[in-house]
């Protein structure tokens, strides 16, 4: 369970490279890995989103753009190249900054949001031994980092000097700050029950007894509250009020185009991925395979770990399967529900989620007490 940074430093220690260069290398390699994950994730998620929304709306989505000889058209899953085409378009598109906008802030805003997403990846373990740097305060770090994005959004809205983006920024600020409370409360449930703050401890606890979601009904309720308020945190329907197409044109992103807009897009999908990872780690047992809980009849010949598809590589596989299922649900929400109004959004957060989350914390501890007495 060593972090990549330590392992790189450890293995190259012996070589005659001066330590300062080594440290930089140790930081640079994981950095590139994270950036690649985010970029690839964005590309695939965009294509997924287009296709899923198309099929739910009785249309076909991108069909024509083929890539590397794979011509699109006529088959249901054509048009793979569409996202690459989009990426190239966004990178090559002219990046207009309105002249009476605050140039420096406007250029900075997308990078702040990007770093917000970037930092949380550091604390997120992909599998049993794959983590960039291991924090013993894991969950707390992730909650802290997820609130960095808000600054970027407010900055973007304010600096593009346009009434609509100002509206979008103000709404986003109110929404994201108020939804962090139910997220934090529902994550505390796990810490309360498993006793660990760091992620490996939590997953280990879940490996010992059972997935946290199956642990007690209140944990399931905690998962629901967490999942819905996380949808609000990443500004997705039915809570996409900051960039409400029909009212604010595109919210705080209105004045952005080209590369900076691509960064916003990248970090939005990265946030979705992070949130899905956190949900799968905390509630759905991270890199544990579902068969692990079911005690199978032991067949001696097969090695135990192979049978239940465990191990580092399968760990990553399971993490991504769970994340993709959750991302599919988020996209599913988007193409089914209308949008809440700002005050209704606040009502849902403060009048429904937070009371339920607080009650949950108490009830889950009572449930734990009962469990200890009886079993």
């Amino acid at each position, binding site marked *: 369970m060593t972090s990549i940074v330590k392992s790189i430093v450890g293995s190259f220690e012996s070589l005659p490279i001066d330590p300062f260069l080594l440290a930089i290398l140790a930081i640079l390699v994981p950095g590139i890995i994270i950036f690649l994950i985010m970029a690839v994730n964005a590309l695939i998620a965009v294509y997924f989103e287009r296709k899923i929304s198309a099929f739910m709306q*009785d249309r076909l989505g991108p069909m024509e753009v083929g890539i590397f000889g794979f011509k699109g058209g006529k088959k249901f899953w054509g048009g793979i190249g569409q996202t690459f085409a989009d990426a190239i378009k966004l990178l090559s598109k002219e990046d207009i900054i309105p002249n009476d906008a605050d140039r420096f802030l406007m250029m900075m805003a997308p990078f702040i949001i990007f770093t917000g997403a970037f930092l949380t990846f550091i604390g997120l373990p992909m599998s049993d031994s794959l983590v960039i740097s291991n924090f013993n305060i894991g969950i707390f770090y992730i909650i802290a980092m997820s609130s960095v994005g808000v600054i970027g959004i407010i900055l973007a809205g304010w600096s593009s000097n346009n009434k609509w983006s100002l509206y979008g920024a103000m709404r986003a600020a109110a929404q994201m700050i108020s939804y962090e409370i139910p997220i934090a409360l529902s994550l505390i449930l796990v810490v309360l029950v498993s006793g660990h703050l760091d992620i490996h401890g939590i997953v280990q606890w879940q490996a010992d007894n059972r997935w946290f979601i199956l642990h007690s009904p209140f944990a399931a309720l905690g998962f629901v509250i967490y999942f819905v308020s996380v949808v609000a945190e990443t500004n997705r329907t039915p809570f996409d009020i900051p960039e409400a197409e029909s009212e604010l044109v595109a919210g705080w992103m209105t004045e952005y185009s080209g590369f900076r807009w691509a960064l916003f897009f990248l970090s939005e999908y990265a946030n979705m991925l992070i949130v899905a990872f956190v949900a799968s780690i905390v509630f759905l047992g991270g890199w544990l395979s579902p068969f692990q809980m079911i005690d199978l009849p032991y067949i001696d010949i097969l090695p135990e770990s192979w049978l239940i598809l465990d191990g580092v590589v399968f760990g990553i596989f399971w993490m991504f399967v769970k994340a993709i299922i959750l991302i599919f649900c988020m996209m599913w929400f988007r193409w089914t529900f209308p949008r809440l109004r700002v005050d209704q959004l606040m009502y849902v957060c403060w009048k429904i989620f937070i009371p339920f989350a607080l009650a949950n914390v108490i009830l889950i501890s009572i449930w734990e007490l009962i469990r200890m007495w009886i079993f």
Partner: protein
Amino acid sequence: MSEYFIEIVNGVKTFLTGMKMTLKHYNNKEELVATLQYPHEKWPIPERNIGFENSEYNLIRSRLHVDIDDCIGCLQCEKVCPVDCITIDTIKPPKGTDVDFGMTSLDTQKKMLVTRFSIDMSECMYCNLCAYPCPEECIYMVGGPNEHKHEIDYEFSQYKRDGLIYEFADPTDAQFAEVGGEAYVESRQSQKQKLVDGENLEGIVEEEKKVVVIEESQESTKKDDDSGLSLKIFNNVDDKPARGVAKKSFQAAKRGAMDYIAMADYINSAIIAAGKSSPEMAAAIELIKNYKDEVVAPSQSEPSPDISTNVILEADDLGATLFDVKSLNGIEDKMSRGIAKKAFIAAKREVLDDNGKIDAIKLALNEAEKMTSEIEVLLSSFVAITINPVESTPGVSLIPDVSLFDIKLLNDIDDKMARGSAKKVYMAGKRGNKLTIEVLADIRNELTGSGMMDDDIDNLIKGIG
């Protein structure tokens, strides 16, 4: 409190039904997808099951097509089109010659040659009103029920806008000769030439201009020692439009190289036609009449002036044509020509009349000390010749050039009978290629004779004159 919980439960229930609905659509996407993949599946018979065959149609709205050999040139479609996107020109052979134009498919005899049938598809609004009144059914929208005549074509995009102007008539020169339409061919050539000139931005060719300049300086001096028979005679007539009509007819008569008696009668008839007769006018006409005896000799004797008059005529024509920016090309020096043109444009924006423009140009040139005598002469020549135009209805050329006014202007006469007879007279006039003024005079006395003349036709004719 309970209402709070009911609301949540109800909310969750409706969420689930909604999500079930979208999932259902996601799952059986094969049948439900409604997209028509354009380049692969082409309208009108898409492969999927909404399938309707051509026989189902009784009408289709796509590009207009005309079978020109069926077209008898009855102009019905042109009249009925709400946006006037169809323009048709026809030539009727002169009375005597019996030219056989052949029969249409519905075997009606064709009586005239359709020389131009152009439809501006960028203007057409696809209302299909032109297809109904056509007696020969030769104009229709391609595809659909008339697939056998012409298959469907709805991808007719062009690079330039005038690519969408479809020309259907293609008369051969032999047919033109047969019908005696040489004048029409020339006008079409000159039109095309003007367009081509305009396209590569050439003004009037340079050297031809030079000739005019020398002539003009001679001509203006010529005018002074001439017999004194010039436009100034009519200056004592104070009524401005009357003076305009008189001078115009004087010009026209002079161009027709009439002798003085014919000229006097001609001006007289024009004045009566315009209803502007007044004592001073009559005196002026008398002056011209008795002018003939003393001055006849000099005007005929010098051969050279004839040539120069022709040249002057051209100059006149040049001067007479609308005084616009191009006529300033005569100024040699580039710098001063620029200043002159700038002044001209500025004057034009304040909508000054020609004289106002010339003063503005003189002013600008003086300030820039660029005024040379030669330019002075050129500008003054414009002052002398250009007559401020009589207010005439828009659409008619400001100064009546040689050719006849357009027959379509007679369409404004409401009463069918009056319009018919007016057109008959017009055609007669056209055949005898009379001038606009004469034809109008004939129409006027024709209508007054048959008692169909009323005041709005009267001012209509005055408007055309």
